[in-house]
C-alpha cells in the first residue's frame, strides 16, 4: 500500500503564495496528473512531495506517515526531472546502479537489477553507453529506469516529456503508462499539457494560482468542468458571455433556455464545439425560435478527419463548431446553429448543465 496524502500543503516565497493550502489523496497504484498553466504551483507541490522544498505549512504523508521532516535522500520517493537528469560522467549502467551501490548491494545483484530495469524500459543493450550518446527520449527512459530500480513507493515525474518532440511524446506516454501498470506503482505526473493529462491519468488535479480547481476523472473534467478556468483550460471551448432573465439566457441577439433555478444576472455559457449542431441554409428568421442561431461561416479549417468552422453569429461573435469532413460547407454560407449541451457559469453559484433534444434537419457532428 503506497498512498500519498497532502494536508493543507502550503508554500510561500516571501509575500508570494505559490501553493495555497491544497489537499488531496492518491490511492495505491493510481496515476495522478497535476495539470495547470505555468506558475500555478504544480512543480512546487511536486518538489515538496519529493523533499526538495520545505513546506511553509501543512503535511505530506506517505502511507499515513508524515515525511516532511525527511530530506530527499531518505524519502521513499523517486523523481524523474524535466531535463539534465542523467549524470554525464557515468555510463548508463552506472547511472542506474548508483543508488543500488549506495545501499551496499553485491555487484552481481546490482548488475542483474540494472539489466532488468533496462529491459523494462525497452533499452536492454544500452548499459555501456554514455548519456551524451543517447537521444532525448532514450535519456528520459534511462532516467525512468533509474528511478524505478530502487522500488520507490511513489514515482514523481516533473514534466518529463516537455523537452521532446510531439511524436516522441505520444510514444513515451504510452510506454510510461504500460510500465506504470506493470510495476503497479503510485505515480504523480506534473504537466501543463492537457492532452497529456487527459490521456495518461486515472484522475487529474487541475491547479491554478496555487489552488486546486477540480479533482476528477479525465472524462468528468472534460464534460463537467467545475469552474470557468477549467472549462477554458481543458479542450476547446466556446465561452460566451450573456445575461440570464426569467428562465432564458440572452447572448447578444440569440436566446437560450436557462437551467433550473437560474438567478437573474450575468452568466457565461460554455459550449463544446462538438456539441453544437449545424444546419445549412439559415437566414429565414429562425432566430425568433429559442435555441436556433443564424450565422455566417467566417472560416473553415481542415484538420484531418474533421473540420473546424468559425461561425459569425450576429451579436455573439465567432463560434467554433466541428463539422464532418464530408459536409457541404463553404466560407460565406449561411448556417443555423443549435447547441445540444452547454454549461452555464454564474458568479457565486455552482455551474449547471443544460441539454436540448436535437431537432429535425439539424446536422450533428459525431
Amino acid at each position: 500500500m503506497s498512498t500519498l496524502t497532502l494536508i493543507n500543503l502550503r508554500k510561500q516565497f516571501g509575500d508570494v503564495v505559490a501553493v495555497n493550502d491544497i489537499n488531496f489523496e492518491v490511492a495505491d497504484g493510481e496515476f495522478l496528473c497535476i495539470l495547470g498553466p505555468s506558475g500555478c504551483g504544480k512543480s512546487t507541490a511536486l518538489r515538496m512531495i519529493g523533499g526538495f522544498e520545505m513546506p511553509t505549512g501543512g503535511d505530506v504523508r506517505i502511507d499515513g506517515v508524515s515525511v516532511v521532516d525527511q530530506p530527499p535522500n531518505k524519502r521513499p520517493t523517486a523523481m524523474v526531472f524535466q531535463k539534465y537528469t542523467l549524470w554525464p560522467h557515468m555510463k548508463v549502467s552506472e547511472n542506474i546502479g548508483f543508488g543500488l551501490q549506495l545501499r551496499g548491494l553485491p555487484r552481481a545483484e546490482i548488475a542483474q537489477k540494472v539489466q532488468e530495469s533496462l529491459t523494462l524500459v525497452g533499452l536492454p543493450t544500452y548499459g555501456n553507453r554514455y548519456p551524451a550518446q543517447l537521444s532525448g527520449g532514450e535519456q528520459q527512459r534511462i532516467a525512468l529506469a533509474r528511478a524505478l530500480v530502487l522500488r520507490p513507493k511513489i514515482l514523481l515525474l516533473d514534466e518529463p516529456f516537455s523537452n521532446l518532440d510531439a511524436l516522441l511524446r505520444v510514444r513515451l506516454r504510452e510506454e510510461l503508462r504500460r510500465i506504470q501498470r506493470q510495476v503497479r506503482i503510485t505515480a504523480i505526473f506534473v504537466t501543463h499539457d492537457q492532452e497529456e493529462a487527459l490521456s495518461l491519468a486515472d484522475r487529474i488535479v487541475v491547479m491554478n494560482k496555487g489552488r486546486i480547481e477540480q479533482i476528477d476523472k479525465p472524462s468528468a473534467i472534460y464534460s463537467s468542468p467545475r469552474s470557468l478556468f477549467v472549462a477554458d483550460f481543458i479542450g476547446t471551448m466556446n465561452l460566451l458571455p450573456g445575461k440570464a432573465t426569467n428562465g432564458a439566457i440572452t447572448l447578444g441577439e440569440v436566446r437560450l433556455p436557462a437551467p433550473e433555478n437560474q438567478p437573474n444576472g450575468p452568466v457565461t455559457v460554455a459550449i463544446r464545439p462538438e456539441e453544437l449542431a449545424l444546419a445549412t441554409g439559415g437566414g429565414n428568421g429562425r432566430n425568433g425560435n429559442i435555441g436556433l442561431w443564424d450565422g455566417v461561416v467566417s472560416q473553415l479549417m481542415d484538420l484531418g478527419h474533421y473540420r473546424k468552422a468559425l461561425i459569425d453569429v450576429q451579436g455573439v461573435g465567432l463560434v467554433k463548431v466541428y463539422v464532418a469532413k464530408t459536409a457541404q460547407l463553404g466560407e460565406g454560407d449561411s448556417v443555423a446553429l443549435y447547441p445540444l449541451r452547454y454549461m452555464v457559469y454564474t458568479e457565486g453559484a455552482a455551474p449547471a448543465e443544460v441539454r436540448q433534444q436535437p431537432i429535425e434537419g439539424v446536422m450533428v457532428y459525431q
Partner: protein
Amino acid sequence: MATLTAPQDTSGLPTFRVLARRSFAAFLRREGFGLFALIGLLIFILGPMMSVIFWAFADRWRYPSLVPQVWAWQNEAEPWRFWTETFSRADILRGLPLSIGLATIVTGLSMLICLPAAYAFARFRFPGRQLFLLSFLTTNAFPRLGLYVTISVVFYQLRLMGTVPGVVLIQLVNTLLLMIWIPTAAFQGVDRALEEAGLDVGASPRRVFFQITLPLVLPALSAAVLLTFVGTFYEAQGAFIIGIPNVRTLPVIMYTLIENQVVAQYGAIVSLVLWVPSLFMLMFANRLLRGGYLTAGFGV
C-alpha cells in the same frame, strides 16, 4: 575543388603555372593582411626569445655579430662554463626547490580556502553576494607594487618580512581572484537537478558533492589550479618586496641577475630554466582550453 577531367580544347585556357601564380596572388589579396600581421607578431615575440636563447647558449657574443662568436660547447678549455657556474651557486640551488615548494603550498592553501567559498557563491543567494564576488577584482585594480609596499608596513609590525609565511600570504592574495571566479562559474555550470537527482537516489549531500559535482567541475578546477600554480611560481614582485633578503625565489634571483650582472649569460640561463615548467603546464592547459572550460569559467 578542381576536377580531373581534361577539357577537349586547351588552346585558349591558362597553363598550370599561370593558374598557380594567379591563385597565389588571389590568396595574398585575401589573406595578405593576416599573413603580414602573423609575420610581424612572430618577429616581435620570437625575436627577443631568440636573443635570450642565444645568450643562454653563448660563450662569447660581441657586437656586431648576429649570432654568438663562440657557442657554449665550443669553448675548448671550459665547455658550458656559465652553466656549471650558474648551477653551482648556492642561491640558485636553493631557489628552485623553494619556488616549487612555495607554489605548491600557496596553491594548496588557495584551494582549501577558495573552493568551498566558490561552492557557496555558486549555490547560495546570500545578501551582498554579487558585491562580494566583484570585490575580488580590487586586488587587480591597483598597481601591485603600491599595494605590496603598504602591506610591508603591516608585515614589519607582524614580523613577517623576510619569512616564508609572509611570502605565502602575499602570494595567496594574488590567487584569490582566479581560484574563486573560475570554480564559482564551474559549480554554477553543474545543474542543480543533477545534484537533486543524486539526493533523490539516496546519496548524502557529501557524497553528492564528491561523486557527482566534483567530477563534473574537475576540468575547470584543474585549469584554475594550473594557472594558479604557474602564476605563483613566476610571481616576483611580492616575493621580492616581502621575501628578501632571506627568501629568494628563482624568479627573484633571475631579475637580480639580469639587472645587476654585466655578464648576460647568467640571467639568460636562469630565464631558460624557468621556461621549462611553464612549457609543460601550458601544453597541459592547451588541452583544457580546447574544452572551452577556461572561457566558460569567466561567465559569472
